[in-house]
């Protein structure tokens, strides 16, 4: 099974594996938030635009979300670079191999993102002019980003299942392969997608809270509407999550239902947090949001444990050689803090009310 896994790079890793994995998980968590808002937000916009003829409030909501989508895509892409960087340096032999096996579909992500991104810009800037046709633009862009998500899911699974590689490689040299027959891919994608809708519902609710200041009636409605999506999607998630769990290979599944103390414990806490959030979020929106962010963070750790369980001893990053570049790492941390400060300052400048165009 592991005979095809390429040898690790002869050049040692520039930092200890635990540090790289910590940054992988941290940056993945940050990426997942705007990513979810793009996928789920696009979906909710399409639905609101379909309902706009019956209810003017839906048109207003769709327009407000449409304005945010291009910025959210920029955040998603930017925050997606870092986790992929750490993933490639730790798991390169797995990731490069699986990517090459599905090279054409994998490369198509670039084109799909470009089209989807321009679509959201068009949708945002020309919302009024497009009128009822706007929904088609939003729909196409959202579907394109969904395909990107599905491609990511399938590659992330393919890199963990080297036993499937040989058959795929022999199947043809065109690299048009797309590993969709693995039983866990569809529920794994849906798990992410439903989470995206839930998080976007939460995002809409927060947007409503902001809008309440200018227009109490509309803001209140947006808040309630968003919360309904959050609660509904999270209930659905219990079913989808169960399906995903059931689709995992037996030995791995066992870890999450009692077999592994750490895995089972983390999963139980994550589910409990989500349950409490559903029940209390009507009254305590900020607290509920914090709990859901906690669930997402735990899920990132659980996902990491799942990866380790898949790989077993076939590929153990702990065995890789390390030669730390401490000065460069320190420089990175300093610049990261400075960069975050610069971004925070700029966003604060944009957000604070100022008499426009005066000295």
């Amino acid at each position, binding site marked *: 099974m592991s005979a095809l*896994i390429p040898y690790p*790079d002869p050049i040692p890793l520039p930092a200890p594996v635990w540090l790289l994995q910590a940054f992988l998980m941290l940056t993945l968590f940050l990426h997942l938030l705007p990513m979810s808002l793009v996928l789920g937000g696009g979906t909710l916009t399409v639905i609101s635009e379909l309902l706009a003829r019956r209810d003017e409030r839906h048109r207003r909501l769709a327009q407000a979300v449409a304005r945010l989508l291009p910025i959210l895509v920029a955040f998603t892409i930017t925050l997606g670079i870092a986790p992929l*960087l750490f993933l490639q340096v730790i798991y390169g032999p797995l990731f490069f191999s699986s990517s090459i096996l599905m090279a054409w579909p994998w490369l198509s992500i670039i084109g799909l993102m470009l089209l989807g991104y321009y679509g959201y810009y068009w949708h945002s800037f020309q919302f009024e002019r497009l009128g009822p046709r706007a929904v088609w633009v939003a729909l196409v862009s959202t579907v394109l980003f969904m395909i990107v998500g599905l491609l990511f899911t399938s590659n992330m699974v393919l890199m963990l299942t080297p036993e499937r590689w040989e058959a795929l490689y022999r199947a043809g040299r065109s690299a048009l392969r797309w590993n969709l027959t693995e039983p866990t891919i569809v529920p794994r994608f849906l798990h992410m997608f439903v989470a995206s809708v839930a998080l976007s519902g939460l995002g809409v609710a927060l947007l409503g809270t902001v809008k309440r200041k200018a227009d109490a009636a509309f803001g209140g409605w947006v808040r309630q509407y968003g919360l309904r999506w959050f609660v509904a999607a999270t209930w659905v998630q219990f079913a989808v999550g169960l399906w995903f769990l059931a689709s995992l290979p037996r030995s791995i599944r066992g870890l999450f239902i009692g077999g592994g103390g750490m895995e089972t414990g983390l999963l139980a806490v994550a589910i409990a947090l989500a349950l409490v959030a559903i029940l209390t979020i009507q009254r305590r929106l900020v607290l509920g949001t914090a709990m859901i962010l906690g669930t997402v963070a735990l899920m990132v750790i659980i996902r990491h444990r799942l990866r380790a369980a898949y790989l077993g001893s076939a590929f153990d990053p702990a065995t890789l050689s390390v030669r730390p570049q401490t000065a460069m790492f320190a*420089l990175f941390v300093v610049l990261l803090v400075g960069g975050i400060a610069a971004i925070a300052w*700029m966003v604060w400048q944009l957000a604070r009310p100022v008499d426009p*165009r*005066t000295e």
Partner: protein
Amino acid sequence: MNYPVWEIPAIGGGMMIGIIAILHVFVAHFAVGGGLYLVLAERKAYRENDPAVLEYVRGHSLFFVLVVLVFGAVSGVGIWWSIGLVSPAATSTLLHIFLWAWAIEWVFFAVEIAAAFVYYYGWDRLDRRTHLTVGWIYFVTAWLSLFMINGILTFMLTPGLWLTTREFWDAFWNPTAIPSLIIRTMVSIALAGLYGLVTAAAIPERRLKAKMVRYAATWLLPASLVLPLGGAWYISRIPPLAREISMGGSPAVTIFAGLSIVLSAILFIFAFFGPFQRPQHFNLPFAFMLALIGLSVTGVTEWVREAVRKPYVIYGYMYSNGITRREQEAIRRDGALRAAKWVTTKEIRQDNRLEAGRNLYEIQCASCHTIDGFNGLQFAVMGWREEFIDFQLQHLSELKGFMPPFMGTEAERRALAAWLARLNPQSAPQSPQLAGESRRADTRRSGSARIEELPQFVGRFFNPSVPAVPQPLAERTGLPVAEATGGAFGADR
């Protein structure tokens, strides 16, 4: 050979990366210089108290966001995607050496993207000073991200002291890092002028148009003065073989290197006598033509920069096919198939020789060559007999300085030669009878021979590793033609 191979039909992996990279470079350099253009033009508007200029800068910033933030960012990710698919070993090596440099570049990139958004959405919400500050933050972080990538990119051609010390700073501050940084900075400023000319040419109002066209045209000036010096400095620091390839060693590379200089000169001359001297007569088609020349210069220059790095992907460390020099000896001793992971044959037997040859093509040739497309081997070996191909394989790196040597056992080399010889059935006759048939077939085809040779000619022209005419090889090896070619050329006489 450690990784699976993605064979891209028709264009090949290098071209695939090239197409994405050239488009990205054209936009990414604009992303840097254009930031400076925005802030300086905005400041100019305030100083001259000219609301019309300000309105133009505002419009230009929308164009900037749509080109830079979307296409620039996504195509940059696209380069990363494509190098990982085409050259996974080299990508992995670069990641291991430069992980933190890339992480730092990512921080600059993130600030750059955020600043661009705040700048664009802040026209009505920020006061002048803050708005300009955000513009400066954009430009400085964009240039710093160029600074980081430049260190990584130049390392590939001139790894310098890193080859012995393996120290990060030796890799980053490699011999061509500074001249290349100067060149790229100048190109950024020039491209900002070129894009500025496009938006300025679209201004309907005559006075403003003339003013902004002339302003944008002056942005080409620094590059026209500094680029020749920076270029000469850069060339003086590249490896001797790379210099030789670009100055006569390979006809195609030499032509492209010449084109880079000639097109740049044409661009600056046109820009001087056109928009700079007569801004009022400047129009959009002219602007697009200049931009197109700019894109061509970017294309040929980046292509030459990639081509001169052969036979390496990381000079002196890793060959274009992903095999490191350190692995070379073991492969020669124990065989390439045994060392490779993703091959269907491990030992060569009589019944799997051709399959083994195909495997060897995949792991040693496919990173630069296709079978019958761009840089196609079918064209390269056309008319060559198996023995001559085998002779060529024995002396690849000497006969063609820009190709890695064949690495493997003698049996493996012969298997590859056998497979290559069968790419063109008629030119590798198995028996006298077959030879006669193929000769007759050749005569019958002779009427259309010219047209059929066209792809071969095109393939050879764009292919730096295949000589336009095979005969000079004999001169270089000092062997009589018949001996050097194994008599292959006598077959059709």
